[in-house]
């Protein structure tokens, strides 16, 4: 198990390196930040001086090596926009991102498990039909549209919740619901099909032959066995929630890392883009290590194989 996690950690580090390298290359293709940073009409000398100051005049491979060395130390350079270390700009936005992604994940796991279990328990009835229809809609609805709809309904019409911004738990409700919908739908569908499969297994018949109460059979012999794919799915969705929350953050003016990265791209603020992507990639890797660990806890056969 220890060796397995170590090798997964190695994979994760390679993945982070890959992601960061791609971001480095892409951001260098986007254009010249010096032109953006200086006022219109700046002289060629001024531009040259700024490029030299930012290290943009050196060969690309040299910039890359410098960049990687810095990244290892957590130094991504100064943000072009904020004139502060890029990493600290990103880390300032982390609490907002974590709050949103965390609550969306919580919404997704709780609602998804309840809905998926209901659909499996009431298979072949209207309950299953309704849950599956909603789940399909939840997966297919564009996030921006859902966000606007929720704002119109709960903020504008009913006036129950704020339309956006980042103050207090009430402002978290709509963004979390918006972002959590896809997760809810995905988990509900996965859990339902997993449970329907497990219900056909011989060991469930054994559990019933023991005279166990339906609740015990469901929790310990059906749900318990169906959790493994859900945990994998959570690992995949966590990346979606962290990085893919750009649209939600934009719709709700949420000051998270996703929106920061997009703004930094528009401003050609490479250090912030790179620091942001690196932080997101690292969290993603950590979450997936955690998922691997949980996987082993849930399935003794996997634990044994490692």
């Amino acid at each position, binding site marked *: 198990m220890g060796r397995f996690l170590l090798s997964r950690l190695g994979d994760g580090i390679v993945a982070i390196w890959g992601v960061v390298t791609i971001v480095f290359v892409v951001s260098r293709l986007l254009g010249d930040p010096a032109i953006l940073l200086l006022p219109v009409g700046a002289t060629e000398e001024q531009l040259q001086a700024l490029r030299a100051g930012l290290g943009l005049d050196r060969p690309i491979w040299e910039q890359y090596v410098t960049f990687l060395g810095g990244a290892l130390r957590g130094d991504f350079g100064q943000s072009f926009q904020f004139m502060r270390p890029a990493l600290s700009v990103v880390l300032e936005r982390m609490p907002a991102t974590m709050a949103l992604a965390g609550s969306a994940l919580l919404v997704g796991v709780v609602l998804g498990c309840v809905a998926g279990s209901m659909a499996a328990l009431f298979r072949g009835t209207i309950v299953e039909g309704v849950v599956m229809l909603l789940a399909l809609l939840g997966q297919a609805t564009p996030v921006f549209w859902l966000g606007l709809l929720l704002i119109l309904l709960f903020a504008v019409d009913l006036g129950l919740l704020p339309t956006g911004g980042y103050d207090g738990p009430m402002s978290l409700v709509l963004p979390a619901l918006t972002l959590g919908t896809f997760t809810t739908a995905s988990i509900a569908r996965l859990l339902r099909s997993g449970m329907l499969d497990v219900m056909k*297994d*011989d*060991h469930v*018949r*054994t*559990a*019933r*032959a*023991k*005279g*166990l*109460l339906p609740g*015990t059979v469901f929790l*310990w*012999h059906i749900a*318990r*066995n169906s959790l493994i794919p859900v945990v994998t799915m959570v690992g995949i969705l966590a990346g979606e929630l962290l990085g893919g929350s750009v649209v939600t953050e934009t719709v709700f003016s949420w000051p998270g890392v996703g929106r920061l990265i997009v703004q930094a791209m528009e401003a050609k603020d490479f250090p912030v883009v790179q620091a942001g992507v690196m932080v997101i990639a690292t969290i993603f890797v950590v979450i997936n290590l955690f998922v691997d660990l949980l996987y082993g806890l*849930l*399935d*003794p*056969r996997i634990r*044994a194989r490692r």
Partner: protein
Amino acid sequence: MALLAIEGLSVGFAREGRFARVIPDLTYSVEAGETLGIVGESGSGKSVHALALLGLLPQPPGRILGGRAVFDGHDLLAMPEARLRDLRGGRIGMIFQDPMTALNPVLTIGRQIAEPLIRHKAMSMRQALDRATDLLALVGIRDGARRLSQYPHEFSGGMRQRVMIAIAISCEPALLIADEPTTALDVTVQGQILDLMAELRDRLRMTMVWITHDMGVVAGIADTIQVMYAGRIMERGPVNAVFASPRSAYTYGLLQSLPHGARPPGGRLMQIPGAPPDMFAPTPGDPFAPRNPFATPRCHREAPPLRAVEDSVAGHMVAAWYDLPRLLA
């Protein structure tokens, strides 16, 4: 007195819009203390009827069409699910064919043995685990205290079946239904499990219904043999009488396909030709007639009732229009 009396049990299956009466009309009983061996080729309705008794038949596609199954004075088929649940795993134990899939792969063996004890004997988890250690010793698994925290994949097939037996007998059932418990095992392990179950039966004074497709196994463990084909009883009687003088051509065929030594004297080796009937396309008459070299025209027209054999052996019954000993003579 009969511990279990089944009367007119009828079970069907719906599949692809068609319906098959897999058990048309089954009546038999098991006396307290008796071991009944039910034998038949695969597909003859042995498992389905046992699952139906215990409310474990998947419905749909299965459907219980009628009948009674009186256990200890109460009809299992008519009682509410909650009462049947109290009996399952408590006074009625069941063991299934495939030990590789019958246990939950993600729960410890200890927990799986403890569950029925907690449910039926109101034990705490700690008490139940203590008892589980004893039960493992009883089924011949040493070092039980350590093995309780292991998972099914850490046990061999034979060991898993021993665990299943421990679960089934944990609450000291009056009736144990064993559905081909040795079929999936190696021949040497089969013998060990058979001996173990015979020993436990005597020790716990259990009444047993032992389902198998192997005549040899029945000879070893049963008092009474009941040969089933297409959901019907073809022949039934004390093991000795049926083995010495089979009256159904189907029983005769099963006995003939046994290896030498186990065969009754004078018989020629034969394989039963053909395949079991398609339950979705039933034919009139004796369901075995199309495969029966001794079949008479009447066998093809009319299904024979189960009747007493005129050999003065109590309980020897057969469903056949022909007189097999005379045809064999």
